[in-house]
């Protein structure tokens, strides 16, 4: 009798693990489709984009503004937090002295652990009233973008820190011995190498941003409309589910599952686009 090859055992375990991950995704997709099927069968699908409004209890099922809302809030948050996060990471990796870097990194770690509902609560008691003084009603696209930026920022800093610290030291040393300035090293040696890592981090956080529910629900106003300005309220697909799922029956419930399905499609499209434009590490 031969002892079982350890590699073989590992392979089997890994295959099972990978299988579970794939299966869970398929299961979620199957379940979403199954639950969304009644509404897809009872009304033609173009109505989700052409109906007058979203009043599911009166038979109107306009989903388009919420798809746009979700993408808008996500893009806004990423535009604000990605540069901030990456710059913070550059500061902490290459400029700040250790006595500053350590507390900074600890703070960021703690911030990333705070549940998003707390950010939402802070948003509703501080940011929303502030915006309301300026332009009513305060609960708006802008409030959502600000709160969401706070939520994803710490993680972007952490991931960027990680990406920047994994640059091969030898390149940096070579550049230094050539007498390049710190700015030139960061701009032409470090950033080109760290690009794929930074990019992946941002894509992952976009996924988190678009999936964020409670905080967004608290500060966005949740009116189903394509906002005319950043001061107008908006409803995201996730808020839609959270607001109405507990009370929804029949076609209404089914339409909410369809919102979930739409959300998955949007996330998938984001990931596909990201993959297409994903930069390769290159040294200029």
């Amino acid at each position: 009798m031969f002892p079982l090859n350890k590699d073989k055992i590992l392979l089997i375990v890994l295959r099972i693990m990978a299988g579970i991950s794939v299966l869970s995704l398929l299961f979620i997709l199957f379940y979403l489709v199954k639950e969304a099927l009644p509404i897809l069968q009872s009304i033609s699908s173009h109505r989700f984009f052409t109906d007058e409004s979203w009043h599911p209890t009166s038979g109107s099922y306009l989903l388009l503004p919420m798809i746009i809302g979700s993408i808008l809030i996500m893009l806004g948050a990423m535009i604000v937090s990605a540069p901030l996060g990456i710059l913070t990471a550059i500061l902490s990796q290459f400029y700040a002295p250790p006595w500053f870097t350590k507390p900074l990194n600890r703070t960021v770690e703690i911030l990333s652990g705070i549940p998003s509902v707390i950010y939402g609560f802070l948003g509703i008691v501080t940011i929303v009233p502030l915006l309301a003084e300026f332009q009513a009603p305060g609960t708006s696209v802008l409030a959502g973008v600000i709160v969401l930026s706070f939520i994803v920022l710490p993680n972007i800093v952490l991931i960027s820190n990680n990406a920047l610290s994994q640059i091969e030291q030898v390149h940096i040393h070579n550049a230094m011995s050539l007498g390049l300035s710190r700015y030139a090293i960061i701009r032409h040696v470090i950033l080109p190498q760290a690009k794929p890592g930074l990019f992946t981090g941002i894509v992952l956080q976009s996924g988190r941003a678009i999936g964020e529910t409670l905080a967004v629900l608290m500060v966005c106003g949740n009116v189903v409309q394509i906002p005319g300005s950043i001061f107008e309220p908006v409803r995201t697909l996730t808020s839609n589910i959270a607001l109405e799922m507990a009370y929804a029956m029949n076609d209404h419930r089914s339409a909410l599952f369809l919102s979930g399905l739409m959300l998955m499609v949007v996330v998938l499209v984001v990931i596909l686009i990201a993959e297409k434009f994903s930069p390769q590490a290159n040294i200029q």
Partner: protein
Amino acid sequence: MHQNSFTIISSLNKTILLTLISFILLTTGCEQQKTTPVAGGVAQLSGKLNITGSSTIAPLAAELAAIFESKNPQLRINVQTGGSSRGLADIRQGVSDIGMVSRKLKTEENDIQAHLLANDGISIIVHKDNPITSLTEEQIKSIYLGKIKNWKSLNGVDKKITVINKAEGRSTLEVFLHFFKLKNVNIKPDVIIGDNEQGVKLVSRNRYAIAYVSIGTAEYNIKSGTTIKALPLDGVEATTEKLASGEFPLSRELNFVTKNKPSPLAQAFLDYSRSNEARKTIEEFGFVPIK
């Protein structure tokens, strides 16, 4: 083709449901309706009760259940929210023992038995600093229809009104719409909220907002110093007292519902919820117990 897949799904659903129900019956059925005699001659109840439905009633039901459980340590009561509609659906499907419905049962819902627990009112709230002291029904209607957009037209400050409405499916919304004879499609909200507390938070931080929430929630918050005030309706103050006296017009029933005759265990809990002791708990929640 469509027909086919539909039948498959519904039959699949039925099978799942049947398995679920039989499982519940198997696991809980044998425990139910047992009474254990204890010293002193008072029989203690044991078993399991499932209560589901309206989120307005759920916190109260959970509190009543906790007290009732402490009197009957062998008893487990499980309270879950999901809205009045779910309360009714669960009762019909036999998934729960008692449903919670925060409105009067419709005449066509005669397959269900209602056990009136208390009354709840809906009060219109604005920020404490808002100079407006009362609004007529017509004015409230106009505000929600977007015909009145500025507080100035109501002799208030020259600021745009922030109209806060509830999300589709909430019973507060239904009662509000029914009372003011409005259709949700015609309402022009600036903010749509889920639960009462969210409405209170928004109004307490926005001087120009208007919302409607359960009287109990409003009164509790006003007493604890939140910067909101409840507007009188048709000249009647929005307080639990006026609600109890039957003067306050914008009110709704809070019902426990069962399918036909409740089980002895459910009946025992229903009886407790109408006892004098339970009245106090109900009042603490800002609702008005039945006489």
